[in-house]
């Protein structure tokens, strides 16, 4: 392997004059670049794959945002009695079919849970209203249509179930109070 790399290195240095020391620096830069990209991907993917509660703190100087909510009129269908998963998909989305399968399966097996698939290109108003920047993005709505939490990227059934349990738990608590 090392011999191989050396052969490549010398071949490249003969191709490009004065590349000897520059080559080592460039190779190091490539490794650093790819390591940084991997790290950024890992952090982003970890963060995105969880259902995150909605950010309610207003930015300085901005009025407090009202609770984001979707109505059955927005969706042209009834909301789930327990929860509704709203998925934003798009034509160029490679991960969307996988997420759609997970949510369809969940809606079929969990009572009171509905699943809605929104084609983002046709609903840019909703995309802007809910600050959707990538597909798939999934909003989890409570029975009133208020956005409880959201996630993006690949989705496992376990993560979706956990978010559902969290929502049910909080709804029960608010009824008790």
């Amino acid at each position, binding site marked *: 392997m090392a011999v191989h790399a050396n052969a490549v290195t010398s071949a*490249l240095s003969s*191709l*490009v004059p004065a*590349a000897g020391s*520059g*080559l080592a620096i*460039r*190779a190091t*830069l*490539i490794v650093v*670049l*790819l390591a940084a*990209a*991997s790290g950024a*991907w890992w952090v982003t*993917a970890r963060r995105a794959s969880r259902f995150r509660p909605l950010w309610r703190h207003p930015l300085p100087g901005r009025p407090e945002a009202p609770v984001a909510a979707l109505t059955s009129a*927005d*969706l*042209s*269908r009834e909301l789930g009695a327990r929860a509704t998963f709203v998925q934003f*998909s*798009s*034509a*160029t*989305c*490679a991960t*969307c*079919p*996988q997420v*759609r*399968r997970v949510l*369809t399966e969940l809606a079929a097996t969990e009572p009171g849970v509905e*699943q*809605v*698939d*929104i*084609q*983002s*290109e*046709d*609903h*840019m*108003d*909703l*995309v*802007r209203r809910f600050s*959707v*920047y*990538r*597909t798939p993005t999934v909003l989890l709505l409570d029975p009133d249509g208020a956005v409880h939490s959201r996630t993006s990227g690949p989705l496992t059934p376990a993560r979706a179930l956990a978010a559902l349990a969290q929502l049910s738990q909080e709804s029960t608590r608010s009824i008790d109070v």
Partner: protein
Amino acid sequence: MSESPTAPNASSRSADTAEPAPAGIDPRGPRFGAAVTAALLAITLLLGTGPAATTLLTVVALLFVLGVARGVQGTLQGLAFKAWVRPRLAPPSELEDPRPPRFAQVVGLLVVGAGLLFAALGFPSAVPIAAAVALVAAFLNAAFGLCLGCELYLLQRRLAPQH
């Protein structure tokens, strides 16, 4: 806000896309292609600036042109995957829509094309810069299956004028 959303597709299939979905492709094909592209881009970076690097980046650009024109399965990497790699693999567990990776080829061509354009205009460092940007995208696709170009699609739609 003026357009009121018509019924979002409630069923599990996205039936409201105008044209029928084309036949699926093996999702490992684009990733194999991205690995080849990443290797070519890494060599481009190692070459630094100069005619050799520019030539290699032009080759990568031509591969992207094939991908834009015929889809990823029609690029040289795609054909190589079909001929030599896929027969050695187990059948894929699921197929993938060929449109997202094809859109990503457009993004790749824009990045690499911009690098070549600026190099031609007298900024030789544009070649390694464009190669580095494209390398990150190709590497993430090959290593983790993340299609960075596909992620840009919705951003581009959001930037389009609001009606």
